[in-house]
């Protein structure tokens, strides 16, 4: 994916070009991946407790923080999915103000895949992936591919403040 680029078309617009078909495939799977965020066993990763050793405090924390986090996650997801309707061939443009939504949606998708497949640090180091043979390898490939795009968007966010 050497052709993948993030460009500021102008102050208000960001363009991603050179989206390889394999990445495009991953991106189009975002709705399905992000839907799993609310699944049992995965949900706790996104709605953490601040003091996990204290059940009462954790329950209070979750009661207060969960609605806002849910709104934030859902809003980012909706924004990115709307932007993706403009994906044509290997290019997509979206308003620069949507960049935080893209960062969080891509990060969420990677985390969902990681939780679904119990990905470890050692898994992330593997280079012998065989997506055709194992679902976990397919998920790791998706995590890495989405990571490449996320990395470029983080670099862009850092460069543009």
């Amino acid at each position: 994916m050497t052709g993948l680029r993030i460009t500021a078309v102008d102050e208000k617009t960001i363009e991603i070009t050179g989206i390889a078909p394999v990445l495009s495939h991953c991106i189009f799977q975002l709705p399905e991946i992000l839907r799993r965020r609310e699944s049992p066993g995965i949900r706790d990763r996104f709605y953490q407790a601040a003091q996990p050793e204290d059940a009462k405090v954790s329950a209070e924390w979750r009661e207060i923080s969960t609605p806002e986090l849910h709104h934030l996650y859902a809003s980012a997801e909706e924004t990115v999915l709307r932007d993706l309707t403009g994906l044509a061939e290997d290019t997509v443009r979206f308003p620069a103000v949507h960049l935080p939504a893209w960062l969080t949606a891509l990060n969420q998708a990677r985390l969902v895949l990681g939780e679904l497949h119990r990905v470890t640090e050692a898994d992330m180091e593997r280079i012998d992936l065989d997506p055709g043979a194992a679902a976990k390898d397919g998920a790791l490939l998706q995590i890495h591919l989405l990571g490449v795009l996320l990395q470029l968007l983080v670099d862009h966010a850092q460069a543009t403040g």
Partner: protein
Amino acid sequence: MGSIPIARSIWYLPHVATTQPGTIHLDETETKVDLATPWNVIVHNDPINLMTYVTMVFQRVFGYSRDRAERHMLEVHHKGRSLVWSGGREKAELYVHQLHSHQLLATLEKAES
């Protein structure tokens, strides 16, 4: 977040009992302890989050320089956790909430006195 959750010790401050005019009796000794004891914001390692993403989040949430943010990120990566901020409970809770909203693994711990 409209109000900060869990900082009951602070919310409870107005709920004091008066025993006689001009005298205020704080009936929760824990309150005084909580206000005096700093709280630590801890970020834990995660196999998925990109190192650059974590650095960016530290810069944005705490206003840290790139160098300082990277130092904390590397501490998380190599040691499994980093104490990224310490101070009053209410602000610590706000920071933890912000870190959670960026999907970083973060907890709140009372600092050892």
